[in-house]
């Protein structure tokens, strides 16, 4: 925090108090209280109810599915992110800025629309329906559809992070390695990867949080089959709509813990590893 400047500190105390107080009130109403409420409601029925809600078969299936989807989506995004980072920051070519814009595209598409797109491709009257049928696959209203929807919405996270970081990086160490005769892979593993690892981890954290928490896109393609195609967020919705609030919030608290761990890890990377918030 570099800017704790002299003029600001000379602002009259009442101004400072009003501004700090106003901000804290705003954040309490929109961030603090909802978070506290999740845990309060989760444990409102007692510890036994909480454990029961998380260990019943449908909840366990939802946890398994959410972990599976993230375990597929995150590594794919890592491979793509590394490739995009290398291609877009180590070479010049025409259409580069267009490519960067396209990588951001999923951020401006409503998750619901993302789900709809997959229905149009793989649904009953979809483009690829003949192929899907011929191969006897099930994509929408099944796990592959959920994975595809998750891939769409998490697409930019790792790549954007790496592109922004690698763009600022000096390429001299890599060039030195090439000059000394190291090949591309060796240089990547021993020179590039160690320097981008925190940035990569940062992208992975955000990507993972979104992959595990995605609701809209997954909801459209899931079919909501309990025990089969319900991820944790969808399970939360079902329980909530059945007025089973303590179970809904118990499940939600798992996701809230995921969010808090993500935030803590983010802060740790930002403050502890020179990975300051890039500007």
């Amino acid at each position, binding site marked *: *925090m*570099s*800017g*704790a*400047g002299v*003029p600001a500190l000379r602002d009259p105390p009442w101004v*400072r108090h009003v*501004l700090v107080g106003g*901000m804290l009130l705003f*954040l309490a109403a*929109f*961030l*603090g209280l*909802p978070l506290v409420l999740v845990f309060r409601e989760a444990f409102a029925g007692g510890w036994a109810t909480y454990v029961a809600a998380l260990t019943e078969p449908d909840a366990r299936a939802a946890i398994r599915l959410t972990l599976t989807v993230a375990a597929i989506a995150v590594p794919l995004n890592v*491979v*793509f992110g590394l*490739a995009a980072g*290398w*291609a877009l920051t180590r*070479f010049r*070519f025409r259409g580069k800025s267009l*490519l960067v814009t*396209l990588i*951001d595209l999923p951020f401006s598409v*409503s998750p*619901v*629309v993302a789900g*709809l*797109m997959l*229905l*149009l*491709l793989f649904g009953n009257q979809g483009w690829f329906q003949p192929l899907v049928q011929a191969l006897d696959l099930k994509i929408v209203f099944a796990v592959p559809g959920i994975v*595809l929807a998750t891939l769409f919405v998490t697409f*930019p996270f790792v790549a954007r992070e790496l592109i922004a970081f690698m763009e*600022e990086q000096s*390429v001299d160490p*890599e*060039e030195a390695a090439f000059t000394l005769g190291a*090949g*591309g892979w060796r240089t990547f593993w021993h020179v590039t990867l160690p320097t981008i690892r925190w940035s990569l981890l940062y*992208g992975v954290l*955000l990507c993972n949080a979104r992959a595990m*928490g995605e*609701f*809209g896109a997954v*909801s459209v393609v899931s079919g909501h089959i309990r025990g089969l195609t319900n991820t*944790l*967020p969808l399970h*939360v*919705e079902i329980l*909530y709509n059945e007025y089973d609030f303590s179970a809904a919030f118990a499940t*939600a608290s798992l*996701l809230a813990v995921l969010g808090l761990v993500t*935030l*803590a890890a*983010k*802060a740790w990377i930002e403050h502890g590893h020179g990975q300051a*918030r*890039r*500007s």
Partner: protein
Amino acid sequence: MNAIVASIGTAAPRAGKRRRHLHPGFGLTFGITTAYLGLVVLLPIAAVLLEVLGMSAREAWALATSERALAAYRLSFGLALAAAAINLVFGVLTAWVIVRYPFPGRRLVDAMIDLPFALPTAVAGIALATLYAGNGWLGAPLAAIGIEVAFKPLGILTALVFVGLPFVVRTVQPVLQELDPVLEEAAATLGAGRWLSVRLVVVRQLMPSALAGFTLAFSRAIGEYGSVIFIAGNIPYVSEIAPLLIVVRLEQYDYAGATVLAVAMLLISFLMLLLINLAQRWNHRRGRGG
């Protein structure tokens, strides 16, 4: 998401040229990038666009401009705009306070700003719905003074403010950190009062980034679904947002209706992207000029 936020901040033009000819692997990495982009993002987008092109124009127009659809756009865009405006004001305030005023728990507050990026939207949705319900912690006192939040458009606004909260803070904060307090000091020395010097120096410098954050929050709010549907009430013509109307159409197996709505929303989102890029360019020019 921080990435776009960061890239919009104050990406300074890099000094020096790079010799890239030594780097191998362009074919492989470029191939992976474009193939993956094509399959995961562009193919689905093409599907939805071509689906609309396959319809008769009149039919598509009729579906896109039905009374219910128009009400949904009005609600979505109006509330997204209002939420982004609230986030603009409180985002600049929050960034200012976090950067300039030391107060206990500043690091914790700073870390918590990103909660809406990390907390799944469904969790936020049920938490906000419970919090602002008539018998909720905040809903009850508000109801006592005659303000109903949950299951009203005001509830939707609340959810949209939540999801858009980090954007303005995170675009403004790095600019404010880089901003030399000496400038304010200088303005003050030249006879400007504190409020005037803040307005002259700070507000002008922060405008582009605040605007970029505003656009991001707006664009996010338009498409938001998960955090809204629990608190919205979802009454057609009154509290039914555009993404929800798409889901409603899908549940009626009205794929044509859903697709037309989706494309209408996509077009507007592309417009948003364009605006973001313009704001970014403006930011750059100002950065270089000043």
